[in-house]
């Protein structure tokens, strides 16, 4: 019972952090960052530097009128935004965000579920995101929504494979599915050095998995209005939005864990004992996550969008072979005792 309680506390903390801090901050960062890159002003009316803009957005979403299209399938239509958020809010449970420390004679791991099959769980739960898109597209009774949702789910499935192979390569060298072991393994050197190819694949698929530019075809406004969420407004739209940011954060966190040594300042660095060390570790992880998040924003406003066939070609004919190549190379190296 105690374990469950501990897990719940950890989950609540991280959930609060994600929804209360990351999502609003990211809204602000994204819009200000866009302004910065595109040499504009960005939101600057609400609060200093527009810092309170997310709050204003939240109010707007909450008080906006809820509209449900008359011919929509209400169950699916309403389930979709929730389904978008749920997998997003469960995937990070298996990703460690800080070093293990002792508190009151008890070992506390800074991961919600310390599972033997953490990485597999992550892949499994991430795969559920498709259903949100399908429900949204099918339930909206809208051509654009349906097309967008089909595109999105095809894209998700295509790129999930490559991502799975990239993660698998890491797990092969670690010889464990537990992500804590992955961080321990990087004591000698971070995986980004060992597996630059895998890192590249993972990075690209991370962009695709979050439906962000340059892979935001499902919601490309120029051809599909807004894709699967065309018919969504107010809080429902906000949920999709939040889901996207939570996904981004989780993937950034996973990226940091898999390739950048998690909480390690440099390869082999161990945090000091106790809560202080744990906090330093969490902060270092956070720094890496913030860097990755900035990368997401940066890319979004720098690169143009792919065409759909190019997207599929990239997924199946470039990334998948690359990731398999990476896996084969890593397996051979591990087998030869080099890695």
């Amino acid at each position, binding site marked *: 019972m105690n374990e*469950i309680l501990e897990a719940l506390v950890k989950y609540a903390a991280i959930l609060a952090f994600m929804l209360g801090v990351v999502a609003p901050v990211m809204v602000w960062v994204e819009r200000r960052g866009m302004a910065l890159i595109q040499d504009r002003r960005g939101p600057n009316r609400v609060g200093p530097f527009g810092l309170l803009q997310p709050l204003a957005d939240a109010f707007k979403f909450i008080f906006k009128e809820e509209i449900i299209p008359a011919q929509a399938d209400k169950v*699916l239509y309403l389930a979709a935004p929730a389904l978008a958020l749920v997998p997003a809010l469960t995937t990070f449970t298996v990703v460690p965000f800080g070093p293990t420390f002792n508190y009151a004679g008890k070992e506390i791991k800074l991961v919600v579920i310390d599972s*033997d099959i953490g990485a*597999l769980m992550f892949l*499994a739960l991430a*795969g559920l995101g498709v259903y949100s898109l*399908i429900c949204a597209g*099918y339930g909206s009774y809208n051509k654009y929504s349906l097309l967008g949702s089909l595109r999105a789910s095809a894209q998700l*499935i295509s790129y999930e494979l490559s991502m799975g192979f990239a993660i698998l390569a890491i797990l092969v060298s670690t010889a464990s599915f537990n992500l804590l072991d992955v961080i321990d393994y990087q004591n000698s050197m971070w995986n980004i050095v060992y597996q630059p190819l895998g890192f590249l694949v993972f990075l690209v698929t991370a962009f695709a998995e979050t439906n962000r530019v340059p892979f935001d075809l499902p919601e490309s406004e120029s051809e599909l209005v807004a894709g699967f969420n065309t018919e969504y407004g107010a809080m429902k739209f906000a949920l999709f939005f939040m889901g996207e940011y939570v996904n981004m954060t989780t993937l950034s966190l996973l990226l940091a864990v898999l390739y950048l040594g998690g909480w390690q300042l440099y390869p082999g660095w161990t945090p000091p004992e106790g809560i202080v060390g744990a906090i330093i570790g969490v902060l270092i992880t956070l720094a890496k996550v913030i860097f990755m998040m900035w990368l997401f924003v940066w890319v979004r406003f720098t690169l143009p969008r792919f065409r759909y066939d190019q997207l599929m070609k990239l997924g199946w004919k470039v990334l998948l072979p690359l990731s398999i190549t990476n896996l084969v190379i890593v397996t051979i190296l591990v087998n030869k005792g080099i890695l």
Partner: protein
Amino acid sequence: MMLETVIFYLFASLAVIFALVVILHPDPVKATLSMVITLFSLAVIYLTIKAPLIAALQILLYTGAILVLFLFVIMLLNIQREISLPFSKPVQLWGSIVSVGFLIGIITNFAIKIKIEESVKNYSLVLIAESLFKENALSFIATGFLLLAAVVGATIIATKVKRG
């Protein structure tokens, strides 16, 4: 203790209810989505009997891949709702129900004779991996070939150009 019992009954009833929806709902898309819930519930039940790997694979493979494939095909073929509900041919219906009833009866009869030795054992991933890659290595490789054959076969069958 109680918690796990509650979890079992909760998800078991979910599984049964949505399984009924699967076979009763006229809309194939909804049927498939109900199937997702059934399978997800089963995955949770797997967790309670210390089979987390199977649970993860169930979600990863069935809900994450196979059922999405179903949905794609349904949408690709633009399958409409069934105009009349399934139970329209009485002869066939009753035949089916009687058959299935018999089947259940016989299997239950069969099950009573099964001897069960209760024992608790920890199934670590390592044990499963060893069993999979050592004792069943040949089957594992054969499965790989099966999947390859399925991929090739599916591609050929589905892309065959219609003649005439």
